[in-house]
């Protein structure tokens, strides 16, 4: 800013003298730098739209950067203009200049920018929902976990529930890379929402309606998915993992998941049946055929338990079964704290064998 001019147009007589802003302390500066770094580090990882792991997420990412750069430029221009009008040239401007500025800067420019963004977005949207060329997978949002069925046959629609059949699993969705999979979304209880930020999304899971989401992962890896519609106490702990693998590995995985349980006898299995776990859980290949909770036929093969909140280890399984409500508040499974520890340990050991 030209100093001479500042002095010439300096504050009018009677207005308070201007003080220099106090220097920011180095500590404060270090803190704000650390804050910025923390913010930036949140931009990568398994739950970030900015990892470009899906074709839709990549488009959203491009749009994000374009809009960010555009917004910064407009912000700099606007702030520059107010500095110019209040500090550099605080004297009166002609009405003609003002009107012209409003017409070009306030009308013409925003109209052109908004029209361009709108048209770009409108062209993008149908592409995201193009025809699928991969498997159809049904995902049901249930309080507070995700039921998954591979290879279902069905269509979106209303007053419908998700198509039955398919290979059942829970809280983990495997997808073939480079292929557009159709995900049919539904819910038996309340509205949930399905979002895998790194790949695509988000779409509501609505009772009485089957929605269709097409998602195309482009990078192999493990990503986080979340429920993004408040659905009750444990909503914040309702997540899942998405495992993106080659189409061959995907086929092999689904084939393995379609098999009955690997171990169907022993003390763990007996304790499972005696404590009535089978009222809610199915373990294919045994008489346990409950359908209230997640299918446990291949629990041992999952990365996490309890809808993405705990690593799948024997200790965590014991904790979850004996102090369910403590580990996951609001959960719809009763705690089995009254069952002797050995029995729970036996159940956990058996479940871990179900690869």
């Amino acid at each position, binding site marked *: 800013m030209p100093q001479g001019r500042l002095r010439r147009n300096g504050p009018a007589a009677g207005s308070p003298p201007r003080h220099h802003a106090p220097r920011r302390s180095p500590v404060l500066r270090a803190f704000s730098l650390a804050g910025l770094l923390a913010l930036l580090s949140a931009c990568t990882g398994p739950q970030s739209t900015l990892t470009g792991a899906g074709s839709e997420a990549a488009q959203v990412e491009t749009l994000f950067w374009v809009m960010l750069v555009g917004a910064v430029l407009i912000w700099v221009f606007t702030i520059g203009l107010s500095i110019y009008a209040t500090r550099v040239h605080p004297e009166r401007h002609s009405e003609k200049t003002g009107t012209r500025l409003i017409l070009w800067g306030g009308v013409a420019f925003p109209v052109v920018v908004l029209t361009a963004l709108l048209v770009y977005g409108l062209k993008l*949207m149908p592409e995201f929902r193009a025809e699928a060329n991969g498997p159809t997978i049904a995902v049901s949002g249930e309080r507070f976990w995700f039921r998954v069925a591979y290879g279902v046959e069905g*269509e979106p629609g*209303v007053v419908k529930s998700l198509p039955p059949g398919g290979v059942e699993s829970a809280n983990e969705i495997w997808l073939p890379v480079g292929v557009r999979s159709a995900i049919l979304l539904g819910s038996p209880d309340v509205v949930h929402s399905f979002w895998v930020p790194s790949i695509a999304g988000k779409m509501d899971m609505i009772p009485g309606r089957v929605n269709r989401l097409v998602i195309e992962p482009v990078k192999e890896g493990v990503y986080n998915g979340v429920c993004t519609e408040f659905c009750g106490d444990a909503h914040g702990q309702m997540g899942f993992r998405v495992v993106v693998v080659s189409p061959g590995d995907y086929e092999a995985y689904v084939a393995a998941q379609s098999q009955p349980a690997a171990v169907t006898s022993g003390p763990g299995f007996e304790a499972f049946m005696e404590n009535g776990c089978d009222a809610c859980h199915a373990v294919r290949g045994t008489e346990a055929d409950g359908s209230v909770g997640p299918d446990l036929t291949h629990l041992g093969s999952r990365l996490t338990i309890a809808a993405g909140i705990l690593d799948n280890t024997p200790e965590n399984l014991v904790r979850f079964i004996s102090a369910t409500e403590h580990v996951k508040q609001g959960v719809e499974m009763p705690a089995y704290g009254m069952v002797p520890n050995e029995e729970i340990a036996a159940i956990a050991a058996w479940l871990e064998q179900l690869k």
Partner: protein
Amino acid sequence: MFGSSRQTADNLWTLIAPPTIWAFHFVICYVVAAVRCAPNTGPFEAILATRWFILAFTLVCLLAIALIFRRSVVEWRGHGSGTVNDEDNPTARERFLEFSTILLAGLSFLAVVFTALPAAFITDCR
């Protein structure tokens, strides 16, 4: 009373006519498209009739807004076309209402175009 005798008086209703048309246009386009796509079946079926309807209805609304725009421009010019409003007499009030109507009509025209744009690009219920 207000300069040229051919002029008509402006009031609150002439002022809010353009945004009211905009609001109706929005609601009707929204409802028509929502009802068409509500069954959520056949996501790739073309929805030509819906899009033609939206086009026709949009043209009607734009024409109405354009007429209001023209009327207020003519009257505003007749009142000296000023944009500064620091007098408290009937002519100044008329001029203020007319100029505001011009601005609102311009905004509403654009908004109606933006509301209709999706129908130009989106061809089915996806």
